[in-house]
């Protein structure tokens, strides 16, 4: 019986419902935000149309550096999406209570970023019209086939895991949103699947959520491990590593954790939910981040110190490039600014307050993005057979405006999915919050009129 230590105990059901549904009605600052995201997306769509017309030649990718910003963004997206599994499944299953108000936020991020991860992969294809070949002609031996399989599976489970806890909220929405557009009311009605809050229904929905929460753990581990295998299964310097799977998974938790902290800050201030996402939650997330980053730090030591100590002939130019060469600035900024300093700062209670948390999380997230870049590109510059007889531009890589625009479109797209979900459905499960406030099912059914 561990009760959540909320700052304001004893919220009534009435307050909970109105607090959580009010952001769905007031569109304060909503239009400029949507316009901003749409503008970025339109730019990206334009760039993509040109890329479709002229081919991947509009990117900076050439024969040797044939994976660039798209693939590094893809890993970043997958990484961000993984947090849904950690928070709602792992922490939920072991009975951590403080995640209740942020579990759905994590799940929204998972859905948005996993969906767009699949699209980013398609942006990297020269002939996206042949995508279906993968299913018809794919080899089971190929990590690419495994990857596409797990991405699709993860998206499906994430959507279900978002949808299921939403069902018991629908009666509240039907009641609270009567002043809203007809189509919304209709949608709430359909998505309630006939929910009236009966004993049997609660039992069923809890069981289904539990089954999916268990299922998503191996699938999520698989999705990011397989993504790392796209690299580790090839014999290339910097990728030929046995710890790539756990290295990626822990890195992903850090990335997603930072994304959740940022989302928590935005939602708690913009949606005026500071009574629900409190300093207490930021403090907890800060501690969780320290733990995650320490594990990730440990894997980083292994990933760089072990080959760095041996300095094998073929790996030497690659490692020197990272430690003191062309990529040194980015490498050390990412490692120190995006990992070591955040760990140290978050050890202090003051730094785990909302605003400092937000700033640290932004640094971690940017670091995480460029970390993926550093994993992908420098390796491709050091093939085992020397680069010979190619134009000078083939030796280097810096993304073109097209690549940046299309990548920004993907990020804006994922954020847009999260935004739309947050505007259609409450960002916290009303029924679970109510349960934690000690409100019984009978009281809830009375409120919704399902008695």
């Amino acid at each position, binding site marked *: 019986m561990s009760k959540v230590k909320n700052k304001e105990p004893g919220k009534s059901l009435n307050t909970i419902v109105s607090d959580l549904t009010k952001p769905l009605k007031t569109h304060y600052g909503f239009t400029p935000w949507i316009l901003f995201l749409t503008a970025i997306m339109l730019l990206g769509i334009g760039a993509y149309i040109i890329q479709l017309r002229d081919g991947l030649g509009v990117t900076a990718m050439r024969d040797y550096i044939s994976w660039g910003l798209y693939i590094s963004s893809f890993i970043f997206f997958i990484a961000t999406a993984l947090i849904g599994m950690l928070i709602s499944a792992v922490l939920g299953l072991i009975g951590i209570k403080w995640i209740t108000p942020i579990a759905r936020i994590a799940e929204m991020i998972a859905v948005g970023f996993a969906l767009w991860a699949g699209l980013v992969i398609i942006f990297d294809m020269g002939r996206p019209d042949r995508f279906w070949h993968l299913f018809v*002609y*794919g*080899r*089971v*031996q190929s990590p690419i086939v*495994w990857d596409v*399989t797990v991405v699709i*599976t993860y998206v*499906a*489970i994430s959507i*279900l895991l978002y949808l*299921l806890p939403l*069902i018991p909220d629908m009666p509240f929405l039907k009641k609270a949103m009567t002043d809203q557009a007809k189509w919304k009311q209709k949608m709430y009605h359909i998505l309630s*699947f*006939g*929910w*009236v809050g*009966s*004993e*049997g*229904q609660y039992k*069923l*929905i809890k069981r*289904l959520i539990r*089954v*999916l929460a268990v*299922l998503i753990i191996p*699938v999520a581990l698989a999705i990011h491990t397989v993504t790392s295998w796209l690299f580790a299964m090839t014999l290339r310097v910097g990728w030929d590593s046995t710890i790539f799977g756990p290295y990626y998974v822990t890195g992903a938790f850090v990335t997603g954790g930072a994304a959740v902290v940022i989302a928590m800050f935005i939602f708690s201030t913009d949606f005026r939910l500071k009574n629900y996402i409190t300093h207490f939650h930021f403090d907890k997330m800060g501690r969780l981040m320290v733990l995650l980053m320490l594990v990730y730090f440990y894997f980083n030591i292994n990933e760089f110190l072990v080959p760095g100590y041996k300095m094998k002939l073929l790996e030497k130019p690659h490692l020197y490039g990272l430690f003191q060469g062309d990529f040194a600035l980015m490498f050390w900024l990412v490692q120190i600014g995006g990992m070591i300093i955040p760990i140290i700062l978050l050890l202090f209670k003051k730094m785990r307050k909302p605003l400092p948390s937000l700033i640290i999380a932004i640094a971690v997230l940017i670091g995480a993005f460029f970390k993926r870049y550093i994993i992908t590109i420098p390796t491709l510059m050091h093939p085992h057979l020397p680069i010979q007889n190619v134009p000078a531009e083939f030796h280097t890589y810096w993304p073109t405006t097209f690549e940046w625009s299309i990548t920004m479109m993907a990020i804006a797209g994922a954020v847009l999915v999260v935004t739309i979900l947050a505007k259609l459905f409450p960002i916290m499960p009303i029924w679970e919050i109510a349960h934690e406030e000690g409100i019984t099912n009978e009281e809830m059914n009375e409120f919704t009129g399902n008695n």
Partner: protein
Amino acid sequence: MNSKKITYKGLGIVTILFFIFSISASAQWNIPDNVKNKKAPQDATYELIKTGKSVYNNKCSSCHGHPGKGDFLKLNPVPGDLGTSDFQNNNTEGSVFFKLDEGMGSMPSFKNQLSETDKWCVTFYIKSFDDNFVVKGKKSTSIKTNLTVSSDNKAKKLKAKAEFEDKDGNMKVLKGADVAFFVKRYFGNLSIGNVKTDENGYAEIVFPDDIAGDSTGNAEVIIKFKDTDAYGNTAVTKTVSWANPVHYENPLNERHMWGNRSSAPIWLLITYFSVVIGVWAVILWVVFQITRIKKLAKE
């Protein structure tokens, strides 16, 4: 003190002189007269010059550049442009052949690297930059010869009969000529014997019993004259079934991680499909359960 200084000075001068000497006095080509006048066993034809050109581009141009262009490597001594009239006037067909055959200093010897024919083809190609070089209509120095080969399956013996055409155009027995026997391998030919013809013109060998053949034990034997200069390139190939059969496994027929789609390892197929089917069965089960929510409304 003084005498020491002088000794040092003297030593220094000697060293410097030694250096100058060693740089300037590099070795000289020493070409015997009979080699200079040596002619190729065949006429130069445009076909052969073409072959020579491709051999040259493969093996020589990295150092010598393109004849007549002066784009050779700046080595010490310089490889030199082989297309200049200065070089052509001072080097006969025979000398060019000798130089590439023997090599000197940083000029590698191609004696064992190139076949006799290829060496002559390169020579033709180089000499084709000489305005006086005759490409067609040159007399062959070799006589017209003929080889016939018979085999003895029981004793695994191969018997070659050598003949030549005399001035009157009659075929005569060729005595005392070296006949070489080879087995054709993937890369080049394996020598299995060298026999002089007897007074009846016969040369005979016993096929060795340690030769690997194809899956049915077949092997291709090439019989020709050793002295191609004298007897020409007459050659006979004969397939014999006396070699040891070797069965080559085609790795593509087995199931491998790197194999194609249809040869995926069984364990992988089982793992992949059972996991995918298992997970999706649960997902579909959950989706189906959602439809049960309505039924449970009364409970």
